[in-house]
């Protein structure tokens, strides 16, 4: 039996449309891929959150892999992921630097006292300038930076122990194995 084109064409068009929907609906439109993956981590030198007289910069971790976590006290997701960050810090595999984004110093310090401090150091970015250099658009965001200073991975949204194990740890181990 030969189906007439009149039926075949609309069916084909519909199938293509469904294909687009299946792919499109499976995506999270809030997650915009960062062009910084595979590039050198942007340099910065910011005041330390707990000591305005001293500066925090990525070169503090020169020669070793590290994590940059963007957070703020106004960010609900940051409170949610705090426990996961504390666990990663306890694991002691990789140092975490905090980037306190568009926040109030006193509030931020209070938060760390109350919830615990997973960070080796926290850079204070009240004007959000360094955040723009890192392409940050919504806290929490978590970057993994290699010992060579290259951004390997970016997580947009709440970090969980599962995501850390699945998406970050293999990258860390691959790097450690190669080095």
């Amino acid at each position, binding site marked *: 039996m030969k189906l007439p084109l009149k039926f075949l064409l609309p069916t084909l068009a519909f199938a293509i449309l469904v294909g687009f929907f299946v792919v499109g609906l499976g995506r999270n439109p809030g997650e*915009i891929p*960062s062009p*910084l993956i595979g590039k050198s981590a942007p340099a910065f030198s910011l005041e330390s959150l707990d000591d305005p007289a001293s500066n925090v910069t990525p070169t503090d971790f020169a020669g070793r892999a590290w994590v940059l976590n963007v957070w703020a006290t106004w960010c609900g997701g940051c409170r949610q992921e705090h426990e996961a960050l504390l666990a990663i810090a306890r694991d002691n595999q990789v140092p975490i630097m905090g980037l306190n984004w*568009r926040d109030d110093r006193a509030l931020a310090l209070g938060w760390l006292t109350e919830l615990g401090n997973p960070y080796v150091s926290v850079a204070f970015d009240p004007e959000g300038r360094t955040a723009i250099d890192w392409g940050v658009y919504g806290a929490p965001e978590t970057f993994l930076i290699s010992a060579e200073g290259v951004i390997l991975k970016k997580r947009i949204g709440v970090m969980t122990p599962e995501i850390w194990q699945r998406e970050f740890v293999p990258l860390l181990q691959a790097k450690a194995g190669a080095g």
Partner: protein
Amino acid sequence: MRFLILAVALCLSPIASAIDSGQRFDDPALQARYERLIHDLRCLVCQNESIADSNAMLASDLRREVHELMVEGRTDAEIRTFLTERYGDFVLYRPPLRPRTWLLWSAPILFLLGGLTVVGLIVARRARAARANPHILEEEPDQQ
């Protein structure tokens, strides 16, 4: 008359509204350039708004950034590059033409050609049918 004045005033009012008075250029040409730029940049938090329309914190930071880059004398292209290096092409409301976006940019033309092909096929088929049976296009004779 009063109604007319009110109607005209209402039509003009959106032009006068500005989202913030933080950054302005005294030179109207520069101000126009600034407005054009920020209307063409997407706010990544509220993705269907430009950074000119959005009240999000990030949008106001990006407006400040654009303003500062303009003050430094950077060109529009340099400012766009500055932002795409950090946020990707998604920050542009007008994505650049490159292999990844060929399909996107050519889609309207492809759809038009597709439609024209379908119309052409139907017209050709009807013309063929009319040639085969010259009376097919004639009106039905009145029944009365």
